[in-house]
Structures are given as structure tokens and as C-alpha cells.
């Protein structure tokens, strides 16, 4: 029996195999970017990485965390890095996020730049302080019906230095239909002198990946991963009168700042802290703050409810926080002529509304501080 019929299939197989071989050879040549050296800030730091991935990813692998609001998808424009080497023309995906000046000085979106060769880059100093942290959840406490306090003991590194007011990125683990970890930002509510712990207030957001995980999955004793400390929201060391406003879980950085000032004895300037909520059951941590108020002459704590129910038996301030704030500006705060600063933490709407009241009452816009990631 002649095997001539085999020639056909063998030829097809053979040719296909040769072509596949050529493809994989070309692939390994073309897609093998080899080792690339990334030089940061003119020699301040030098990394050797395997090319082929985005600059954002490779830096994160080397523990340098460039902030991103969209997870590297190219839709937020936050991950800007100044690239001094030639990495090709600006991609159409980057153009919408770069100003004229940035385009000229080499600023690029690090999530869109693929590292194929050695490169020199420039990044802000603060990014070097941001670390990856492993911790264990020591306690989870309910503060209100939709806010939990999460207290984490640091394992590696065992201590963290940070400025009161900064935030951390908490990483959730896969659960339910969600197959990948996700990261979201939460301000530290613990003061910096509690060096081996970090505390957070997490408010449940319906459909939120990390808040739902915190409320439904996270257990005491569980080990978690965080990136910290990030952000430039912190107390400015001046003698100005400080007006601080928080709503809901926005209490966290303000609480950290207040406790920090109290512990350091930084108590000679007036501090007014306004905490706004809807009903009594949305208030929390108020006892401790009133205790501090009784001992610290220059510290004033004002709680305001916008919709107190009859059962609340509320005799404190009533109204939207912006109205209460305005009243105090014109009355009790006695602000005549004094330099003032504003510190805000809460929802974007609340922040915008409070900025309006503050500027109307004499606080210049550049002296009003808030976390821009909000």
C-alpha cells in the first residue's frame, strides 16, 4: 500500500510548522526587549527591569508607586512622569491629558509608555516615600450603620512614618464574581504617633468593590496589603485659625490631624472642627472629641445635624453644614482680621459648597486644603 496519500497532510503540517517556527522566532526577537535600565532623577535611583511592559507597571514592580486613578487604562491622566529620553511620538491616547507645556518638556502618561530601551525619567521626591505594607486586621468596629472602623497592625514594615491627613490605598482580594484585587484610597484616621498601626473609616458604597469587600468579606485576623502614605493633605504649620470640616467618613484625616496636634502640644492656635451628618445615628467618635474640647481651650468641636428626627432629641446645631458654618463665621468664630486656613474632607459636593462659604467669609482659595483624589 503506497503511502503517497500522506505526503499532502505532511506537507501542510510541515509548512505550518515552519511558519509557526518563524513566527515564534520573530516573536522572541521582536518582543524580547531584554534588560532595560531606568535612571530616575539623574542618578538618584537606578533600576534594571525586563522591558515590554508599561512604565507604570514596571515602576510598581520595583516598589515605586506612581499614582493612578484608573488602574493604568489611560483614562485619568494622573500617572504623569517626565521622560527625558526619546520614547517615540506622543500617542493619541496620551494627547487629551497633556498640556502644551507638558508636551514640550517630555511629560508622558506612564501607563501608555512601553519600556523597550534604557530611559531617563524624573519623578517627584514624595513618590519614593510610598511603600508597600503588609498588615493584619486587628479590629473591625461598627461606627454607624454604614461606616466601619478598620484597625490594622503593621507587620512589614512594622512601623510607618506619615503626616496626619495622608491616605493609603487598601487592596481588596477576589470575592464573589470579582476575580482580581482592586485598590481604593482611604484616609488614615489614626494619628502618626500610633506608629505600628493604621486605622481607617470605610463607608459602604453600594456596588463599591473594596467597601463591599470590607463589609462582607474582611475578617479580624486577616492579612492585607496596603500602599502608603500618599497625598499632600496635612496641617500647615502656621498660626492661622484653622477651620476644619468633615462629613461622614471624611472625619478620618481630620481626626488624625486633631489627635496629632493634641499629642504634640500644638495647641496655641484656634481650631474649629465642624462635623456634619443627617441624623444622630450618623454621628460617631463625638464623645472623645468633646473630651478633648474640654481640655484644649483653643479647640472647638461643633456637630450639626441636617435632618434630626424627633426621636433624636437633638439640641445641638441644626441645618446643612454650609449654613452652620456661615453662621459661625459671622458669629462665634470671631475671625475679624485673623489669617485663616480651611481643611475639608468629604464628598465632592460638600467640598465645593464649603469652599464657596469659606471664600465668601474671607479664606483665600489657596489656603483651603482638601484631598484632590476625592
Amino acid at each position, binding site marked *: 500500500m503506497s503511502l503517497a496519500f500522506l505526503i499532502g497532510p505532511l506537507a501542510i503540517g510541515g509548512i505550518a510548522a515552519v*511558519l509557526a517556527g518563524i513566527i515564534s522566532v*520573530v516573536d522572541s526577537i521582536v518582543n524580547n526587549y531584554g534588560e532595560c535600565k531606568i535612571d530616575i532623577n539623574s542618578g538618584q535611583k537606578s533600576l534594571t527591569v525586563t522591558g515590554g511592559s508599561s512604565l507604570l507597571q514596571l515602576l510598581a514592580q520595583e516598589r515605586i508607586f506612581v499614582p493612578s486613578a484608573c488602574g493604568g487604562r489611560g483614562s485619568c491622566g494622573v500617572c504623569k512622569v517626565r521622560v527625558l529620553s526619546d520614547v517615540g511620538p506622543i500617542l493619541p491616547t496620551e494627547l487629551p491629558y497633556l498640556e502644551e507645556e507638558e508636551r514640550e518638556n517630555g511629560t508622558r502618561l506612564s501607563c501608555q509608555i512601553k519600556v523597550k530601551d534604557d530611559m531617563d525619567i524624573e519623578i517627584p521626591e514624595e513618590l519614593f516615600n510610598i511603600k508597600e505594607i503588609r498588615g493584619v486586621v486587628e479590629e473591625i468596629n461598627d461606627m454607624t450603620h454604614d461606616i466601619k472602623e478598620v484597625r490594622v497592625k503593621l507587620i512589614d514594615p512594622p512601623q510607618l512614618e506619615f503626616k496626619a491627613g495622608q491616605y493609603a490605598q487598601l487592596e481588596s482580594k477576589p470575592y464573589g464574581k470579582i476575580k482580581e484585587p482592586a485598590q481604593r484610597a482611604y484616609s488614615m484616621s489614626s494619628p502618626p504617633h500610633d506608629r505600628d498601626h493604621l486605622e481607617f473609616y470605610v463607608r459602604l458604597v453600594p456596588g463599591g468593590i473594596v467597601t463591599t469587600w470590607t463589609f462582607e468579606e474582611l475578617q479580624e485576623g486577616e492579612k492585607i496589603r496596603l500602599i502608603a502614605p500618599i497625598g499632600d493633605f496635612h496641617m500647615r504649620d502656621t498660626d492661622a485659625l484653622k477651620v476644619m470640616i468633615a462629613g461622614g467618613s471624611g472625619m478620618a484625616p481630620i481626626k488624625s490631624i486633631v489627635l496629632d496636634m493634641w499629642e504634640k502640644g500644638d495647641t496655641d492656635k484656634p481650631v474649629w472642627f465642624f462635623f456634619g451628618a443627617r441624623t444622630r445615628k450618623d454621628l460617631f467618635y463625638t464623645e472623645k472629641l468633646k473630651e478633648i474640647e474640654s481640655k484644649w481651650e483653643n479647640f472647638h468641636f461643633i456637630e450639626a445635624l441636617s435632618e434630626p428626627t424627633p426621636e433624636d432629641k437633638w439640641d445641638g446645631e441644626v441645618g446643612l453644614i454650609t449654613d452652620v458654618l456661615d453662621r459661625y463665621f459671622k458669629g462665634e468664630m470671631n475671625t475679624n482680621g485673623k489669617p485663616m486656613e480651611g481643611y475639608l474632607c468629604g464628598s465632592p459636593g460638600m467640598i465645593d459648597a464649603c469652599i464657596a462659604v469659606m471664600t465668601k467669609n474671607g479664606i483665600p482659595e489657596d489656603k483651603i486644603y482638601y484631598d484632590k483624589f476625592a
Partner: protein
Amino acid sequence: MNPPPVNLAVLLFASVFTSNILLANFLGMCSFISISKDVTSSNGLGMAVILVLTVTTAVNWVVLRYVLIPLGLVYLRFIIFIVVIAAVVQVLEMVIERISEALYIALGIFLPLITVNCAILGVSLFMFIREYSFVQTVIYGFGSGVGWWLAILALSTIRQRVEKAPVPAGLKGPGITLITIGFMAMAFMGFSGMLQVQ
């Protein structure tokens, strides 16, 4: 193999105009109609087609001459040609991405789209039927590519103007496009008396 005695310059002119693969043979229609909505994309696709046609036709000639004919497997040309086309497009994609990311993004989806373009297979098969020599094959492949590019560029610019014309609702889009292509083909048919290569 018995290459026809065609002058190379004539062959080039013929592949681009008189025997235009799109308008004379009506091959490569699907991406022709769908991509010609946009002039920049049409340009990008056309250039990619020139590249792919030249390379694949040449490679297919080599495979035909040195593998299929000696082994008596000419009947397998359909399968082999398609496999070669797919592989060449893959390799081209990788190389372009490496060499110029901006060009890769500009060509984008069009590179892999070319694999399913029947004009590519068609040109290789015509090369076989007409028994072209290697040089003739390269000229024919390149010329057909240029012809395809010119045709899609022309159609896309025509469509820009037709967009603004008062076309009856039922004919908008594919309808008027096919009618336009028909007119273009008729115009090119006028060439057919000039130079015959098929």
C-alpha cells in the same frame, strides 16, 4: 511553469489600473465597503494591503515553486496560501509594533483584518494561474496593492461628498456605496480595451 511574455512596466500599469483587483475582479469587497467610511483609515488600510500583498504573493510563489510543484501537491495551494498569508500578517504585525508604535496604533485593527481579505488570496491564485515568474509576481503583487489602495482612497473621498448629498433613506450607507462602486467599475471597464493581461 511558463511565464507569459509581458513587459514589466505594462504589467505594473495593468495591475494598478486596467485589471484593478477591486474594480475589475471585484475582490476584497468587505473591508473596501466598511472601511471606506473614513479617509484616514482607508489610507492606512490601503498601505497595509500594499505591504501584505507584495510580501505574501512573493512568499507564496517561493512555496509554490520549491515545495508544492516538486511534491505534486499543487492541489493544496488553497490551504497553504491561506496559512502563509495568516503567518505573514502575524509577523508583519509584530515587526511593525516593534519598529514604530505610532504606526502600529494608526494601522491598528486593519493589519489582522487583512488576513480575511479575499483579494490577498485572489492575487496569489491569479499568480499561479498565469504562471508568472518571480519578478513578475512581485510586480503583480505590488501593483495590485497599489490599485487596491487607490480604489479605496477614491471611494472614501467620494463617500465623504455623497454623505452630504440628498440620498433616499433606503439607499443610505451600503446601498449608495454599492451603486458608487458599480459606477467606478464601469469607468475602469473603459480601460479594458487598452492593455490586457488576463
